[in-house]
């Protein structure tokens, strides 16, 4: 039985981007939000450190500086017109959050308090600046809660625990989505003039990751399966401070408050690599430095990790606290309560009295569904639009993060471009017409779901997933080479083939997470293929994409975005077929590419 619904506009995903879009779109249109998780379970809630905006509440700051930092942080692959919007709009977007009730930390004079963060500087790179607005180390939680609260206030319509499995695309235009109601297993057709994807990241293709189990990028895979392009998939950020082995994130706020990296020799090694910003250099830089320290035998006890040290005595010895001031254990407990607790719980280490083992963790997808600055999805590198399709947040690529995102810039991206996307969509539906659906739009994906349910074979989804995560981590991680990536690509394709023989245990209809997890694995396989293809193709090193065999940035040949796409017939299952890569030039307005030093 297939149920059918009609709306002006749909939003897929209820994290920061989806909820912000919903609040704005539903002011002018009939909107539904569809989410496989209860909205407050979305991964935005785990964001810790802060949201950047040049409010200048603590010290002089300007949106132009923020724009420059964003572009430099992204290793000049950022589209500068979009970065300008991000940095400018950040200011009133943060103010809008405060007006919605967000409990920001406050300065003694009652303004929003700010802290330092990696790569955010004053006067175009001269010194760290306090730009990250925050609520202790629970900023994402507060954003998610506040936006959801306002959705309740505004009576936004939600379909919670509905899993989107396909997009309905007819003659190149998006007409809605197909979703499974998780509790009943029923298939629902959502027919709409416009659909905005806000499904977050897909870090679960890597073994060590800060990403939730649910971050598998299913709607992004649907875009790929429909032959639409994905942009800059080779750029995946590895955050330097993941808890050793677990990958759970320890926010950069730890370093913003003065924490330093220490190697086996007890050395603050970032001083050597980044004399100005030191431990607050951008993430790609810090992750590579950790990797190099480990490679040269200076990992702790010769192993593959180093320490983050936030003991007050260490911070005070190096005078690495904010503004060089001394810090106390009590202040740290107040500013970093959650991450200190997490270190105590999950690693059994008290960071106030001992250094904590860390290693880089797969964190953030800079790439995704290409859009313009109003969230409209692009059909090609020339800027042709996909009628009815929008995207915002981590699943989208505007591109404001280029080759490497700065800390605190994702939360800004969510609210700034979620808002713009929501507004643009509401405007679009005023004049767009609701075209009739094609016959049996759910047919292909229902067939794939039924195949998974009934398939017999010797393969297990958990095993294929573990092999995928391992091969991607080892070969398409912090450092890569052509042969390594080629190994990963071959493996991913082998896994895709084996995916067809996965047998699941749960044959039921209701809450069949066995089935849906397997479907998610198929999505990860497609996105891993897109990532590896793009990484193999880009023969230079830029931002998060570091090729040992091509160690230099090459602006002559590679100052351009990758558009990768599947070119076979539309599919509702993992693709098996031809792919193609094309390029889109980077938009440069104010800042010419320079060598990147911190």
């Amino acid at each position, binding site marked *: 039985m297939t149920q059918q619904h009609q709306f002006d506009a749909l939003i897929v995903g209820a994290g920061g981007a989806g909820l912000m879009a919903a609040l704005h779109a539903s002011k002018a249109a009939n909107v539904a939000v569809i989410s496989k998780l209860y909205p407050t379970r979305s991964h935005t809630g785990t964001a810790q450190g802060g949201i950047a905006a040049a409010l200048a509440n603590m010290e002089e700051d300007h949106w132009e500086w923020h724009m420059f930092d964003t572009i430099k942080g992204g290793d000049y692959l950022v589209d500068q017109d979009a970065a300008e919007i991000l940095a400018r709009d950040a200011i009133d977007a943060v103010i809008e959050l405060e007006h919605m009730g967000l*409990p920001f930390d*406050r300065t*003694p004079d*009652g303004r929003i308090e700010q802290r330092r963060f990696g790569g955010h500087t004053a006067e175009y790179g001269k010194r760290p600046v306090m730009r990250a607005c925050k609520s202790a180390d629970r900023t994402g939680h507060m954003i998610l809660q506040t936006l959801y609260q306002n959705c309740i206030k505004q009576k936004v319509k939600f379909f919670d625990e509905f899993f989107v499995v396909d997009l309905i695309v007819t003659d190149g235009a998006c007409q809605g989505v197909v979703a499974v109601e998780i509790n009943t297993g029923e298939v629902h057709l959502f027919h709409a003039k416009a659909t905005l994807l806000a499904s977050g990241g897909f870090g679960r293709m890597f073994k060590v990751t800060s990403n*939730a189990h649910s971050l598998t990028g299913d709607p992004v895979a649907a875009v790929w399966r429909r032959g639409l392009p994905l942009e800059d998939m080779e750029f995946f950020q590895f955050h330097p401070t993941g808890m050793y082995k677990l990958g759970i994130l320890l926010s950069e706020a730890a370093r913003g408050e003065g924490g330093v990296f220490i190697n086996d020799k007890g050395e603050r090694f970032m001083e050597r690599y980044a004399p100005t910003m030191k431990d607050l250099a951008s993430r790609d830089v810090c992750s590579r430095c950790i990797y190099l320290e480990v490679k040269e035998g200076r990992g702790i006890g010769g192993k593959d990790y180093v320490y983050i040290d936030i003991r007050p005595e260490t911070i005070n010895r190096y005078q690495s606290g904010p503004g060089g001031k001394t810090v106390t254990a009590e202040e740290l407990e107040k500013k970093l309560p959650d991450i200190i607790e997490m270190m105590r719980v999950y690693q059994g280490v008290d960071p106030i009295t001992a250094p904590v083992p860390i290693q880089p963790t797969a964190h953030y997808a800079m790439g995704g569904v290409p859009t313009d600055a109003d969230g409209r999805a692009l059909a090609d590198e020339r800027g042709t639009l996909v009628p009815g399709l929008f995207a915002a947040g981590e699943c989208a690529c505007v591109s404001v993060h280029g080759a490497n995102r700065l800390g605190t810039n994702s939360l800004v991206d969510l609210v700034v471009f979620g808002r713009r996307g929501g507004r643009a969509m509401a405007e679009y539906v005023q004049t767009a017409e609701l075209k009739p659906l094609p016959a049996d739009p759910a047919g292909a994906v229902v067939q794939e779901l039924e195949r998974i349910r009934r398939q017999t074979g010797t393969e297990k989804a958990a095993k294929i997933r573990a092999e995928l995560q391992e091969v991607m981590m080892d070969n398409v991680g912090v450092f890569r080479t052509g042969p390594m990536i080629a190994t990963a690509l071959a493996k991913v394709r082998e896994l895709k083939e084996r995916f067809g023989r996965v047998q699941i245990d749960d044959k*039921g209809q209701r809450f069949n997470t066995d089935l849906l997890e397997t479907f998610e694995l198929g999505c990860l396989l497609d996105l891993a293929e897109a990532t590896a293809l793009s990484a193999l193709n880009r023969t230079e090193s830029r931002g998060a994409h570091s090729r040992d065999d091509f160690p230099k940035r090459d602006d002559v040949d590679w100052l351009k975005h990758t558009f990768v796409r599947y070119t076979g017939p539309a599919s509702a299952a993992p693709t098996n077929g031809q792919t193609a890569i094309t390029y889109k030039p980077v938009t440069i307005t104010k800042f010419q590419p320079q060598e990147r030093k911190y």
Partner: protein
Amino acid sequence: MKFKVKIKRYNPETEQKPHFETYEVEADPGDRVLDVLHYVKWQQDGTLTLRRSCAHGICGSDAMRINGQNALACKVLVKDVVKEGGLLTVEPLLGLPLVKDLIVDMEPFFEHYRSVMPFLVNNDALPADGRERLQSPEARDRFDKGTWCILCAACTTSCPSFWGNDQYIGPAAIVQAHRFVFDDRDQGAADRLEVLGQQFGVWRCRTAFNCTNACPREIPVTQLIGEVKQALATGKLE
């Protein structure tokens, strides 16, 4: 280490009522109970059904009864709940309708949450300079603890008053109300206190303290409930 885990199972499509199933598992002492459940699901029985997402205690998906105590499966370590060769028991939350295995219907919980108007109410004009409303650090601190809530339902489903009558709005909804009632930017206190003062409001709380013990975010839930009772009794917000 090796031990057994006994899990309450229920398949609504084939069973009238739940039963227990026991699995032999292997885990590190530092593993999370969630890792153990994944071990069962991924190595032994794919039909085991649970909610989870973040795996580090922030999203609120995996509250359940672990050895009879409400907790997040991703925030309880194996070494703290079971010994080598021992038995670990995992059951769904009590007091909410059972859906399948460890999954309960969260809708009644969210309905209570929505009933306290969990959003900022302020009808004054916004600051003319286009900037943030001002709030002192002390005023911000006043309602801090309530903002930690992740809506996992561990508190509400540990409360004997809620087990006794599920119309009681429960500790989580009161914590959410507290978060706004004591925010000096908010003007909705009177309406919220009216809801809280009703028959199934805050007076159903018998100070059993289960909620405070159950909260994985260490919110002093009973204390916050006490402050709401106080505000109702005296008509003053302090």
